[in-house]
């Protein structure tokens, strides 16, 4: 009896060591683009008006990701693109240089496309790009800053324009969207069904037996809401320091906290077994965000939001600590 057991266990031991015997792939640089808009200068307000927390979101998330990249011994280049106040005069915004290309940090659609084009020239296969957006949104749409009073082309379509602009960018890509209805940009998976989108039994079978095949998404999306509005929240009552509900939880997941100002702690709460992944951030946000995930007949809520990310078999490792 012993011999067959040994013969059966031997291949297990050999096979199981795949991750342990192979050298880790080279980790490159991290690039971050953090976009925040308050819409104070926009004629378009989407019926919602001025946003108070979006610039805090972008600035503090930039600090948080830089801190985690440092802990992971990775070099990070970060760019803040923003729109703040009531001016449309771009000359009041500083220039940022990507490679050798100077780009205005004003968060207009044209400037963002230029920035992504410049990043495509310098990002290598082993690098990692994070883009975060904090502003108004609609169904698969982000609302960028206008370049003039006459400009009405301020909507950036996520699937058609943003993801297309990212196609020439090599390396791994993560897009974090904290805006209303942002989860509607997350494409359906070829291999799994979203439980947030209430699949029918036939959806399960159709997905399994469909011809489409799964591939690791070229751009991973991580969004504030599945298909509802995204809300802002005051960090402490009376503090007048506002954040997006999603981003506030995300900052905490990355080790950030607020006392008199924003600071980074020594631990990364979203770290699980030495890695920070999209799933570990998602799980943290889901558990710790200040609003309920959904409204139900038993727990009705006028304000709720449910984070969303791509389905499928693979989780994206952001940092190994």
């Amino acid at each position: 009896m012993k011999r067959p057991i040994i013969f059966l266990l031997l291949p297990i031991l050999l096979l199981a060591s795949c991750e342990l015997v192979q050298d880790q792939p080279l980790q490159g640089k991290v690039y971050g683009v953090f976009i925040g808009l308050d819409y104070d200068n926009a004629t378009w307000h989407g019926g919602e008006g001025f946003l108070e927390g979006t610039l805090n979101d972008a600035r503090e998330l930039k600090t948080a990701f830089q801190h985690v990249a440092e802990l992971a011994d990775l070099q990070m280049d970060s760019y803040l693109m923003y729109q703040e106040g009531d001016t449309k005069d771009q000359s009041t915004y500083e220039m940022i240089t990507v490679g050798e290309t100077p780009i205005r940090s004003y968060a207009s659609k044209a400037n963002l496309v230029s920035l992504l084009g410049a990043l495509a020239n310098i990002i290598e296969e082993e690098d990692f790009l994070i883009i975060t957006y904090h502003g108004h949104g609609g169904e698969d749409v982000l609302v960028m800053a206008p370049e003039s009073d006459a400009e009405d082309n301020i909507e950036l379509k996520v699937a058609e324009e943003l993801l297309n602009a990212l196609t020439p960018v090599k390396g791994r890509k993560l897009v974090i969207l904290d805006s209303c209805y942002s989860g509607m940009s997350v494409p359906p998976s070829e291999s799994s069904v979203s439980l947030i989108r209430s699949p029918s039994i036939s959806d399960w079978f159709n997905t399994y037996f469909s011809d489409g095949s799964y591939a690791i998404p070229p751009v991973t999306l991580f969004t504030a809401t599945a298909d509802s509005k995204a809300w802002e929240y005051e960090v402490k009552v009376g503090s007048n320091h506002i954040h997006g509900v999603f981003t506030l939880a995300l900052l905490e997941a990355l080790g950030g906290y607020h006392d008199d100002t924003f600071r980074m702690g020594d631990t990364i709460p979203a770290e699980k077994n030495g890695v920070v992944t999209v799933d570990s951030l998602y799980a943290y946000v889901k558990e710790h965000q200040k609003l309920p995930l959904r409204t139900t007949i038993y727990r009705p809520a006028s304000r709720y939001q449910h984070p969303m990310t791509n389905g499928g078999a693979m989780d994206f490792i952001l940092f190994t600590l």
Partner: protein
Amino acid sequence: MKKPLVLSLLLLLTLPIAGGGFITTISYSPSVYLSIPHFEDELPFRTSMNNTFIFEPFGYETEHWSVGTSLKGAFVTPSLPWGNYRARGFSSLGLGVRFSYDLDERFALFGSGGMAINRYTAIEWAFLSFWAEAGIEYTILETPNTELSAILPITVDLRKEITALSIGLGLRCLFDPYGGGLI
């Protein structure tokens, strides 16, 4: 397609009541879960741990063989972190049918198959899968109404984007719920 399935299930349910030999079993087997991707990945396969619990409420046993319907629960951990990605962990609930054939007083061969619904542990996405399993069973302890066996199951998990091979070592407890004695 549906009729033979319904008839088989009815037969499985009615046989124990009609002829005795009714058995109930529970089993647990931890195993290594190797995910072989159908898509482009950094590794030829990813390694996770799998804990499988099987409850067979309705089983029927004769002198040499047994058959039963099984309810399977499994918990697969995320794979070991390597490179830029890792395989997501998930939990699984499945229904299946199990057969076994006694080679002698101690050894038996078994096979099972079925379908499962699976939910990723961290995110709210789910998927369907089918499994087939084969293995050896060795009876360690035997009383008139119970049996304890060691099992060595090899499972193939057929997912849309992954074929997973699971090899483990576990325990299986068999009861005679009516106290008539095991055959």
